[in-house]
């Protein structure tokens, strides 16, 4: 495929990688779902779970009253509590850090920016291409979930799956934008990955631990997890809070474009 714009070049660069991510995450979802029919009737599993300390449950991003034997509880515990947000955040951070960071590390940024393209537009085009791929990854996983839901008889409404997937994609986009903004402020891809990962971990812990300790409760609204997944969209459906991490991502993108217009390009 012949790339003809900064956006299509970005898709050209990451299309294959994105396909592998989609296949891996879909395979993970399918394998997890395949276990469900065999444990739904095992009360012992649920008892063991109940005996776990609340702190541990919280660390896995799970509420105290989770019921493993329902499809909703099972998916929350096995898929949405930890693994899927982790996968999407990892993917989005990789893309966000690469958009400008990789070209600068490789030295191709000098050539690209010597062409008549506005720097801010380069940032926006590259990042929106990354957003589109993250959403596409979300859609692929969502379709897998719908099929798995049906095959494993988990009885989770499709709209609920859509709302929790939207939340997962939203947190991913938020921390991907953190990685982007760091690389746009200065040439530092490693710092960007580290900063975005630490921010994501902190936000995850604040949101999770707020349910068991009052210490972090006041700062919980600062966590994008609280807004995207804190209202348990898998049980309760869509919430407008979902737009908070998306809005944060949009603001970070504007900051990134602004900062990138103003700095020196490294050789």
């Amino acid at each position, binding site marked *: 495929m*012949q*790339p*003809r*714009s*900064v956006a299509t*070049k970005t898709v050209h*660069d990451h299309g294959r990688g994105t396909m592998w991510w989609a296949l891996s995450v879909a395979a993970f979802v399918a394998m997890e779902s395949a276990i469900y029919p065999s444990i739904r009737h095992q009360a012992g599993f649920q008892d063991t779970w109940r005996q776990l300390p609340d702190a541990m449950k919280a660390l896995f991003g799970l509420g105290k009253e989770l019921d493993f034997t329902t499809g909703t509880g099972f998916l929350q515990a096995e898929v949405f509590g930890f693994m899927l947000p982790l996968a999407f955040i990892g993917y989005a951070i990789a893309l966000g850090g690469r958009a400008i960071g990789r070209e600068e590390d*490789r*030295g*191709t940024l*000098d*050539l*690209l*920016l*010597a*062409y*008549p*393209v*506005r720097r801010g537009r380069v940032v926006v085009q590259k990042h929106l291409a990354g957003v589109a791929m993250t959403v596409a990854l979300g859609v692929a996983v969502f379709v897998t979930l719908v099929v798995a839901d049906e095959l494993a008889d988990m009885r989770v409404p499709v709209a609920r799956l859509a709302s929790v997937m939207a939340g997962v994609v939203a947190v991913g986009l938020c921390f991907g934008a953190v990685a982007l903004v760091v690389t746009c402020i200065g040439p530092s891809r490693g710092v960007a990955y580290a900063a975005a990962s630490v921010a994501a971990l902190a936000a995850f812990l604040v949101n999770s631990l707020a349910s068991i300790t009052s210490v972090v409760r006041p700062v919980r609204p600062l966590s994008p997890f609280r807004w995207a997944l804190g209202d348990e969209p898998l049980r309760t459906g869509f919430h407008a809070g979902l737009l908070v991490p998306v809005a944060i991502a949009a603001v970070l993108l504007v900051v990134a474009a602004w900062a990138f217009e*103003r*700095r*020196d*390009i490294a*050789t």
Partner: protein
Amino acid sequence: MVTAGMTTEGLTKHYGSAVGVEGLDLEVRRGEVFGFLGPNGAGKTTTIRLLLDLIRPTAGRAEVFGLDTRRDSVAVRRLVGYLPGDLHLYDELTGEELLGYLGALRGGVPQAAVTRLAEQLDLDLSRPVRALSKGNRQKLGLVQAFMHDPEVLVLDEPTSGLDPLVQLEFHAMVRAARDRGATVFLSSHVLSEVQEVADRAAFVRAGRLVAVEDVESLRRKALRHVHVVFDRPVPATALASVPGVRRVEVQGPRLRCLVEGDADAFVKALAQHHVVSITSEEADLEHVFLTHYREAGHAAA
């Protein structure tokens, strides 16, 4: 009044406490080939990257065709074909895909121009960039710089990695660009290359402008190390008095010296004797500086 091709006024770039360029005042005329000469680390690449708005000046300003390189940066880059000194290309694309992509960023470039340049440089565009040698990548860099027939060419060490035959082809490309009215700004650390194609040249050292010379005075300033072997010992005095010949050292039938500028008198003096072999090598730019600009060079250092 015709606006200048390129001007810099007090252009300065510091990196922390290190000086990239300091108070650079240049004026490149429209339609001329302007050489930008200096040893490695003199600030040539810094100047060029300032012109393209890849880095921002600490002080001073620059214009290309009357356009401010900061404020009108996109318009400047539309005019310019640029070859980076440290060229990095998209390894995963083929030559054709790369040029297609870069051409699209300019809003499209005639395929005929790309094909003609690739043929002129004998470059296979179907191969992936990662499979290309250093020289072939450099050719690809030249094609992308020339492909839209730019009004301004900014070329940073353009012949590095090119074999001598391709260098000749490159010189022809530069002359053709000048003949159609383009302004060419070409950096180099090799005096002879600039003599070959430039109308005028600036010497920079340690970030400062040392001198601007026309091509005639460049020729006069050329320095060559010459090593001659005669069939029998020759007295040093026979050649030491020849104009332009310096630092004559004689050991039996062997003679070493520096020849400055026009070599005619030296060659005619040699012809009085039986010459077995003669080799000649261009002196590096640092040597030229020390010979001609000792004062200015020290002031800058």
